[in-house]
């Protein structure tokens, strides 16, 4: 979340609550509702690292709003983040561990494990489909996010199939 907040601040200074709203609007319902407290904590850490600069703004009748602005170092950090490429794909370690250890432990049937996981994936896929249908068609970012998730799920399901083929 750190770098997302930094990236948001490149455009203009903003305060914590604004940033929360921006994130929500950008990512839509696919993104779990950002926790305000989490955001403030992150902002604090960012300030301590010197990547942003905070400034208090007076408000009548309410505690002071702290507005943050990007520093030169922060700008550098954002640029570096954009330059970086994503890491290698994740593998669901936990499930695979279960699958690998099931025959040895004798406590679970590999095929039953696979079936259960598949059902879960399918239900997830179903929910994602509903989400995509409910979401605003023009919010391309949101749609792409959902589609990315679906494609990952497809890959996972295909991998499950391979596991079932090999382990049968």
């Amino acid at each position: 979340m750190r770098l997302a907040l930094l990236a948001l601040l490149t455009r203009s200074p903003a305060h914590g609550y604004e940033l929360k709203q921006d994130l929500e609007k950008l990512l839509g319902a696919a993104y779990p509702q950002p926790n305000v407290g989490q955001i403030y904590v992150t902002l604090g850490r960012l300030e301590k690292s010197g990547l942003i600069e905070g400034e208090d703004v007076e408000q009548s009748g309410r505690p002071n709003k702290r507005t943050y602005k990007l520093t030169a170092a922060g700008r550098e950090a954002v640029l570096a983040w954009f330059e970086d490429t994503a890491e290698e794909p994740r593998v669901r370690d936990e499930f695979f561990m279960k699958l690998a250890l099931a025959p040895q432990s004798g406590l679970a049937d590999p095929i039953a494990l696979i079936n259960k996981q598949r059902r879960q994936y399918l239900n997830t896929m179903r929910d994602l489909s509903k989400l995509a249908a409910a979401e605003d068609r023009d919010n391309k970012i949101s749609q792409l996010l959902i589609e990315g998730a679906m494609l990952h799920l497809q890959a996972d399901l295909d991998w499950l199939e391979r596991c079932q083929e090999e382990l049968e």
Partner: protein
Amino acid sequence: MSDDATAAPVVPIVRAEGLTKTHHGEGTPVPAVRGVDLSVQPGEFVAVTGPSGAGKSTLLHLIGGLQRPDDGKLWLDGERVDAYREARWAVLRRRSIGVVFQFFNLVSNLTVADNVELPALLAGASPKAARDSRAELLAELGLEGRERSMPGELSGGEQQRVALARALVNHPALLLADEPAGSLDSKGTREVLRLLTRFHQRGQTIIMVTHDARMASAADRVISFFDGRIADDAQLGGGRPGPAGGVSGVLELKE
């Protein structure tokens, strides 16, 4: 809807017991379907998934009478059909079963209009009635104005939509779809999926073979087919509900 105590049991649209089919091609014979038991209720949307070569298409062909089972029993709407001859199956298919394949759904010599009207004419409808049904369906599927085109002039997605229209023109009790979006891009896949869901909501029973998880997840029930046998038969919509308003674990932002 009905009294539990005195309601007559609903007759499943498809009921299979011990269906078996072995392909004898070049080399060793391949058992495609091995002793499959299946029951599909009216109005269900069933997806059959599995790796390629597992025999999913063969199962579909057996249910639709396109191939004869080596062994086993099959009932369609309570009628015992596994011993039917080809001609009788053809008559049954006219009224009660619509089939959509992955490719080659349309007769290449006939226009789109003729392709869609043909099953209606076969079932005994008058040319006028056939024309009306055809117009209605093509309009619903967004294909007005393409009546006179030949199948060769249509895109893949359009061809599949015409194929759907053709399969549904007689309002069959059962729709069989074998990888209906298998040769389409993602846009085409979405279109087909949307249409299938729409018809399912109107009460159409659909059995669909697919390897696309998205299409499979649109169904009520997913059957996993492995090596000629049913490995899993899951009702979707149950399972752990996701966290309110979002989907857990979809997106993980690094700290």
